[in-house]
């Protein structure tokens, strides 16, 4: 119960940040950070696969209706949520998964956590931007958008994670 309230909070914060701050950052056509994916990164390591999938669906649908994009956020978010257990096992090691808890730099070590955050963000952004472009003609252009936006998303995601996990004990 304690966790649920926390997660409702972080869900609201990431969605609001995305809709009212990052969607209005019209600096360059290459920069479209989608930081809301950090919510999927932060779900507990021992969460049930169906919980992950449900969270991904809810997050995708919320962002779709807020951004006015017909399903593209859902398409990108679902695979991240679905493959997260396998990716977490590969990157963080099976012992960590079995112990559960919220993934954080303190809990997994900065390097492993960074890799985890980067992988999930890259998968999400790659699907999102490829689908948005829907053509191979500007492939280099699309790749640049993926790289630049992912870098910015990971940087902001890291800050959000630090704030969210700052007051938590190492293990909950």
């Amino acid at each position, binding site marked *: 119960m304690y966790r649920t309230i926390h997660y409702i909070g972080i869900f609201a914060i990431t969605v609001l940040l995305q*809709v*009212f701050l990052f969607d*209005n950052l019209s600096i360059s056509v290459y920069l*479209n950070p989608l930081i809301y994916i950090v919510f999927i990164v932060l779900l507990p390591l021992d969460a049930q696969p169906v919980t992950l999938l449900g969270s991904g669906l809810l997050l*995708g649908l919320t962002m779709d209706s807020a951004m*006015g994009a017909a*399903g593209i956020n859902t*398409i990108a978010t679902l695979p991240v949520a679905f493959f997260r257990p396998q990716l977490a096992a590969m990157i963080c090691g099976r012992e960590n998964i079995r112990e559960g808890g919220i993934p954080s730099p303190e809990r997994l070590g900065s390097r492993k956590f960074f890799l985890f955050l980067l992988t999930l963000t890259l998968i999400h952004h790659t699907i999102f931007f490829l689908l948005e472009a829907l053509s191979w003609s500007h492939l280099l252009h699309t790749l640049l958008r993926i790289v630049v936006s992912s870098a910015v998303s990971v940087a902001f995601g890291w800050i959000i994670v630090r704030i969210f996990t700052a007051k938590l004990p190492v293990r909950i």
Partner: protein
Amino acid sequence: MRKLIEFIRSIYVAVLFVVLEAAAIGYYAHSSSYTQARLLARSNQVVGGVHGFFAGVRRYLFLGRENRELTQRVARLEEQLAQYQEAETAARLDSYMQEIGESRYRFATAVVVGNTLNRMQNLLTLNRGRKDGIEEEMAVLAPDGSMVGYIVACTERYSVAMSVLNTSFRTSGKIVDTDYSGSIYWDGTDPNTVILGELSKYAEPQPGQEVVTAGLSEYFPADVLIGWVESAELNETKTSYTVRVRLAAEMSRLNEVILVADRDRYEIRELQQSEQVEQHTRQN
């Protein structure tokens, strides 16, 4: 039977994933930019107020610049008005002879409360809707009169416009003072330039020439400024030019826009779709 249930239990998450993903992809594949505009218009009924607040703050920061631009425009219009007044005195006697109805174009203004530049399908959200007389297919112009987009969806209080920076945007444009026209579209790379494609090889565009709307499209009046020729190149078969056009409207700094409705548009379209026209096209 028990084994079957266990098997289904072991893979039901994967099945659920495939079903949900397929549904999402199906919905996306069948959507158009009109679906997206409708979705955005609906969500604006909820979050439009907050967007409006932020737009208000942003507008306040640019008030000085906007004031300067407006005074310049007022000065230009005053000059034009003086010219017209002069002409009008001369033409008054003639004009008494004929009944002049209301003017062909109807104008309105709106504040931009949502604007993106960093997507392929960029849309503008405006704080005027049906109750202010806004309707679909009205043209959207920047305060200096240059082309920005056209309205694609309206609710009671808000409307959503397709920006020229949208890969689905199409209209016709021409080099000023010539009759060669081509189609204007955005290739999704640079938010400051659009493409004027399929321009006749006889047009010989020079850098710096003005590009204006041709008036062939249903949305824009003729001779609305689009931008200036930046570069031009012949295509491989040397039959037409592809011209890069620097946009006159500064899309990243759009705060207020002018909306233009063409009163004759419905009449013209009705005429184009009338039975007589159809009969003649069928015979040929």
